[in-house]
């Protein structure tokens, strides 16, 4: 039996705890403000999703799917999946889930695209951000619940925050990749024309990165949806909570229904955003 020497112990857990304490005592005002803003946004989006009549959503999704996938059958299928969610009796919960997902995606893009640009423009930023993103994506998602709880308490905001941490990496990563893979000779031509770095970014790099960013948006959305069940543990209402309750009470049928609804939502969102991404790619190539 061998004992690991005590003097090599690193009290990382202590440090993290102390760091969180320090943040809480010094920046609680900041987090309150952030929390409040996030909550307002989330509530408004949720109110909107619960307000629009179900049939309007069905028709809208059907037409959107038909337009972007250029197949009317796909439009019908997507609309039918939505109707099924309603038939299982989960319309309201699905809309709440959708609201949480949408909020997470909106904030992810608002934060992720600028960070992706920063990462593409500065090698130093890339060196710093890349491992952070790796960590964010490989860490078990439950871990995010802890700081989210500590910073924002129980409820919708920490759920949104945890979802956000989990879903923001793809859009940052793919914005970075998209900008960095813009051919050097195209950028050089813009420089030779006398374009400023800003003009190069908006006239050349961003437009050429759009297909890649769209893939990022697709992945971000799927990650956000995947996080929904986990986020329900700290107070997000919606389909996730339903699954969680079913698991706790060992109600297989109920869990199956709710789970299926999440899958349907995932399919609808994935197919539509994916088709949008491919469409962007094609319009660039043709």
């Amino acid at each position, binding site marked *: 039996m061998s004992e690991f020497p005590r003097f090599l112990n690193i009290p990382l857990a202590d440090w993290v705890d102390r760091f969180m304490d320090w943040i809480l005592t010094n920046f609680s005002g900041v987090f309150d403000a952030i929390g409040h803003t996030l909550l307002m946004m989330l509530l408004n989006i949720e109110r909107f999703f619960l307000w629009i009549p179900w049939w309007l959503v069905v028709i809208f999704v059907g037409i959107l799917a038909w337009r972007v996938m250029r197949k009317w059958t796909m439009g019908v299928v997507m609309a039918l999946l939505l109707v099924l969610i309603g038939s299982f009796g989960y319309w309201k919960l699905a809309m709440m889930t959708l609201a949480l997902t949408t909020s997470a995606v909106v904030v992810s893009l608002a934060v992720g695209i600028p960070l992706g640009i920063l990462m593409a423009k500065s090698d130093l930023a890339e060196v710093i951000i890349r491992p952070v993103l790796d960590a964010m994506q490989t860490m078990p998602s439950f871990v995010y619940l802890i700081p989210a709880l500590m910073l924002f308490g129980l409820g919708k905001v920490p759920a949104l925050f945890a979802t956000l941490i989990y879903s923001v990496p793809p859009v940052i990563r793919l914005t970075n990749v998209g900008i960095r893979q813009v051919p050097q*000779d*195209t950028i*050089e*031509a*813009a*420089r*030779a*024309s*006398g*374009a*400023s770095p800003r*003009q190069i970014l908006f*006239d*050349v790099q961003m*437009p*050429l990165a759009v297909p890649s960013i769209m893939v990022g948006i697709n992945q971000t959305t799927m990650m956000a949806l995947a996080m929904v069940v986990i986020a329900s543990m700290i107070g997000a209402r919606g389909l996730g909570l339903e699954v969680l309750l079913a698991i706790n009470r060992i109600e297989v049928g109920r869990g199956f229904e709710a789970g299926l609804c999440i899958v349907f939502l995932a399919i609808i969102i994935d197919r539509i955003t994916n088709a949008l991404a491919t469409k962007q790619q094609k319009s*660039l*190539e*043709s």
Partner: protein
Amino acid sequence: MEHNNQADQTEEICVEANGLWKIFGKKAADILNSDLRFESKESILEKTGNVMAVRNVSFSVARGEFFVIMGLSGSGKSTLIRMLLRLIDSTSGSIRVNGEDILKYSKKRLMDFRRHTTGMVFQYFGLFPHRDVLYNVAYGLKVRGDVSKEERHARAQEAIETVGLKGWENYHPSALSGGMRQRVGIARALTINPEILLMDEPFSGLDPLIRREMQDELIELQDKVQKTIIFVTHDLHEALKLGDRIAIMRDGKVVQIGVPEDVITSPADDYVREFVQDASPAKVLTAGGIMDQPEALLYEWQGPKAAIRTLRDIKEDYAFMVSRHRNLLGLVTLNRLKTVIQNNGASLKEAFTPDPPTTNPVTILEDLFPIAAEADYPIAVVDEDGKFMGEIQISSIFENMIQSKEAIADE
């Protein structure tokens, strides 16, 4: 070689590079400050991992000159031409354009310089794939920020028509062939009406037929707009055809600068000799370069008797007849003169052939062959205004070719 290093003193200097060096890598400054800089590219790469791309290059280009930079792949041509626009920062040296040191320019001033003074055409076009031809061509004006959309489009339209792409304004580059894309690249550079055109192997991706066509168009364009052009190529014939002067690069160094004929007839070293070996003198020597001055000319106001006396004096059986302003009128032969005198003709005009074979001073020897095959008498060299400049004996065409071949072989 020395005297050709500088642009003609009487002309205004437009671009002047002095002692330019470029070393790619982290140890650039150390290499430059040590004796390492004299070593070969390979040995520098091996010892330091840095690439010596351009080595102590100096030259000057006159306003309106067509200056060609030629060399094999990897000799540093692209690096050099990019340095002139500061797309690549030089390790050391100075670049003056219109007397201003562009290496001292601030970022803002440099952007202005690129927006107004220079236009660059790239080997791989560098077009924006997500925008149509019109946007691509107008981009140089768009970045200025103060040119209205109407004006941008009007000027882009003009450039598009100059390069013969009318009707393609709203297509994306992917819909165009290689030759057409290159025209878009050229139009983009022309739109801003720059003083200086920088062209990095603009035609090397094109097939030979289109390539020749584009070269001819460029020559025509140069005649029309009189830009200062700095043109990179690795094709000797292209260099000889286009260049007023040619700089030959090897391993980052300029080994010779001269007019095309100098480069061909007196190559500076083995490297250049090898380069020009397969260049036929017939493609290089020009009528103006090999023509002679006849011992006598006849003038329109002379009488037949005076003419016959002149011919006997110079012991020739022909002479060219010119006007008071030395405009070529025709060819007079001894036989015709004799007939006129026998018939008591009073005017020299009765004795001449009005349309003798003529050529232009810039015609290359190769193109003289068909004329020479038809001609019984020497060929007259006349300039664009019809002024008589000299004559070429049929035999001297071949003598010149043989001589220049031997000159190359001897060295």
